[in-house]
């Protein structure tokens, strides 16, 4: 039985610009002693996923549902008070991103480490302090540290204090949100080794959130790749890191600079999408190097891309000249041929252009049909849905994978 089983977890925020789909239907399971690395670009919803699991919700939550099974129990059904008493820190604890700020500047660190014991198990102060000392020692800190205030510690020390704090109740799952990102490499390695030891001795499960694929591969049994609020690929670390199924994962791996490598690191063109209005279909299709018919271009995106193409000098002579374009529905648009081009001419030219350049301009692949009307040309696009995540041990959400599996 998995220690943690997350199913269709959803967390949306309300903002002035509209709902932010920060976590959109995420599922994964974690066995005891297993570590999952959540990897993704900044803003892809990793921290939000962690917060959603611990039910740490800001005021502007718009939607929060799904299932989180912890130790076989669906904790989403607990009341806030039950959840606080039984799950928080006792079952699942967390090392926050920017852990330095997670310490109260006005309270001695020893007390902060010990506090959960007093809160959850009514341990008296001195006893709690003793246990805190043990844990602090375990993470490699000298005992006198307990009496200091946070501002008297170095960054690496604070990081260890926060890790100690997360371990004090011997939880089953620890969420580590970029626990090492602000540290130098030596300290990083130290902390990763510490985490590895703890994992082996205490059979802890980690959710290890990071940008750093190298670190992720050090520690992780499973890898989950997040993109625009979705978990797009999840599977065994040795598999995902070696032969990624999802094109995004591939790009991500290729973008990691390698030491002493001749290859220049690849990069992913474009920027991550706006989570208030995630793209239809596959959320990655705007940047995907292998996107195709089914990946979900909308008429509006099509128009935008076409405009871009027209204005880019390089393709000017090849692009059929266009007077104007307008979206008719999400999957169809009308094009008025430009300067004295007849409709039938235009259809021909367009077809030729698509045939010639669709490998490069992948959005052209989304054309299902081109029909000449009296004065304009109607372009129909393929209708699609977001790719479902398929697979059992190793799942990915990409039409290529789905098709391949079929």
């Amino acid at each position, binding site marked *: 039985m998995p220690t943690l089983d997350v199913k269709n977890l959803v967390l949306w925020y309300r903002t002035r610009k509209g709902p932010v789909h920060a976590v959109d239907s995420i599922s994964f399971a974690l066995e005891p002693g297993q570590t999952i690395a959540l990897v993704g670009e900044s803003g892809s919803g990793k921290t939000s996923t962690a917060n959603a699991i611990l039910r740490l919700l800001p005021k502007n939550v718009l939607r929060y549902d799904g299932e989180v099974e912890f130790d076989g129990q669906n904790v989403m059904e607990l009341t806030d008070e039950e959840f606080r008493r039984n799950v928080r820190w006792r079952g699942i604890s967390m090392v926050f991103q920017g852990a330095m700020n*997670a310490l109260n500047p006005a309270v001695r660190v020893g007390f902060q480490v010990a506090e959960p014991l007093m809160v959850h198990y009514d341990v008296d102060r001195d006893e709690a302090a003793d246990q805190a000392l043990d844990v602090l020692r375990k993470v490699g800190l000298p005992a006198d540290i307990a009496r200091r205030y946070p501002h008297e510690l170095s960054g690496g020390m604070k990081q260890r204090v926060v890790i100690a704090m997360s371990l004090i109740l011997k939880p089953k799952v620890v969420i580590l949100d970029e626990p090492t990102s602000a540290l130098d490499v030596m300290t990083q390695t130290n902390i990763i080794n510490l985490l590895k030891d703890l994992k082996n001795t205490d059979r802890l499960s980690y959710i290890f959130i990071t940008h750093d694929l190298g670190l992720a591969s050090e520690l992780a049994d499973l890898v989950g790749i997040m993109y625009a609020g979705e978990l797009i690929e999840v599977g065994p670390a040795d598999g995902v890191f070696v032969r990624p199924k999802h094109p995004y994962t591939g790009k991500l791996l290729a973008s990691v600079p390698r030491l002493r490598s001749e290859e220049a690191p690849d990069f992913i063109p474009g920027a991550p999408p706006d989570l208030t209005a995630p793209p239809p279909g596959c959320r990655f299709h705007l940047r995907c190097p292998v996107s195709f018919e089914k990946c979900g271009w909308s008429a509006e995106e099509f128009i935008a891309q076409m405009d871009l193409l027209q204005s880019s000098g390089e393709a000017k002579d090849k692009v059929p000249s266009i007077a104007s374009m307008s979206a008719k529905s999400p999957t169809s648009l009308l094009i008025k041929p430009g300067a004295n081009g007849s409709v039938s001419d235009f259809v021909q030219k367009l077809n030729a252009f698509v045939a010639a350049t669709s490998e490069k301009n992948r959005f052209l692949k989304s054309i299902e049909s081109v029909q000449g009307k009296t004065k304009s040309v109607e372009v129909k696009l393929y209708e699609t849905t977001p790719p479902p995540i398929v697979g059992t041990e190793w799942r990915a959400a990409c039409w290529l994978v789905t098709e391949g599996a079929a």
Partner: protein
Amino acid sequence: MGVVWHLAKRAIFLVITFILAIYATVVIANGGGRVDQILKDQIYTDLKQQYARNPAFQRLPPQEQARQFNISYNSIIEAQGLNEPFFQKSFRYTFNALQLNLGRATQLHSSDLSMRVSDIIFERLPRSLVLFTVANVVAAVFGIWLGLWMARKALSAFDRGMTVLSVTTFVVPPWVYGILFILIFAYVFKVFPAGGLTSVPPLPPSPLILAFPPLIAAGLLGAGYVVYARLRSKYRLVGFGILGAGAALLLVWGLVLPADYFKDMEWHMILPAAAVAFSVFGSWSYTTRNLVLQVMDEDFVFAARAKGLKERDVLSRYVLRAASPPIVTSLALTLAAAWTGAIITETVFQYPGLGLLFYEAISLFDAPVVIGLTTVYALLLVVTVFLLDVTYSLLDPRIKALRR
């Protein structure tokens, strides 16, 4: 140690500032010597009139008249120290004021007809202390409570309404509310007296009894809370003990007092206290709300919640604690402002405290009283600022890190 050294430095600096402030007051209170001239003129005309009514004097030859007049005039001037050049005198005044040797009033006197400035001031000081301390403490407690509530319900209709109310009430000074309250409650509804200290004349033996027990009690209550809030179980009992002692003192004080007189006095204090509280609570609630919201956004508060602390504990142990140094700062500063703001408020209510005394003294050009009062005001401010520093360094261990 760092904190001690820091506090010592502050103390020295504050003492220097205090001396300078007193000297500035001495110079201004005497109008740079102008008041001396006014007083001299007064003496001159008084003397002239006195002699004009004296038939024996009138019969003397003019030279003799002039001579005699000059002799008595000069002796009076000398007796009052008006012949010294002002520049010299200003140092003497300052020196005396610093020793709290405030001299004799020229016009005003206390209710037992003493003309010593210190008697006059100390007769009135407790009244102002009680009125403004009570009003400000009530406003602060209510304001902080409201601010916490607003922060908890942040962005709700309640919060928005209360925020606007707070922001719009605290820009208006107490005396304006005073006028409106008197208009409404004393004249339209006739529930409270319009002003004054009491409607019955007799005075209690020593007015100091009035002020000190409640002040000590307030101090005990405050200290008790601080100890209690330091959240270690051992100290909690001690904190409770101190709180209890404060409450008991208040109770005993309330029982011992001559009931009618004080009831009457309290009755008269309600409107002015309400006016002060009404104009002050808004800055409390608004500041508290904003600071608490700001702190609630801090990662360590988030972490506290993740650790499974109860919301109430998160609020009291983490949020309030982190927000309290700035809150205390604004407490002390509004209190300090309230002291000088009292002048008009007390005048509006004809409440015979320091403020009204100041107004009377200024109207009568009673320079010694003015200087004495300003000294007392400055002293109160200095003490407030210093206490602020002490509290700050107690509440916030980062003090060293924060102060450059």
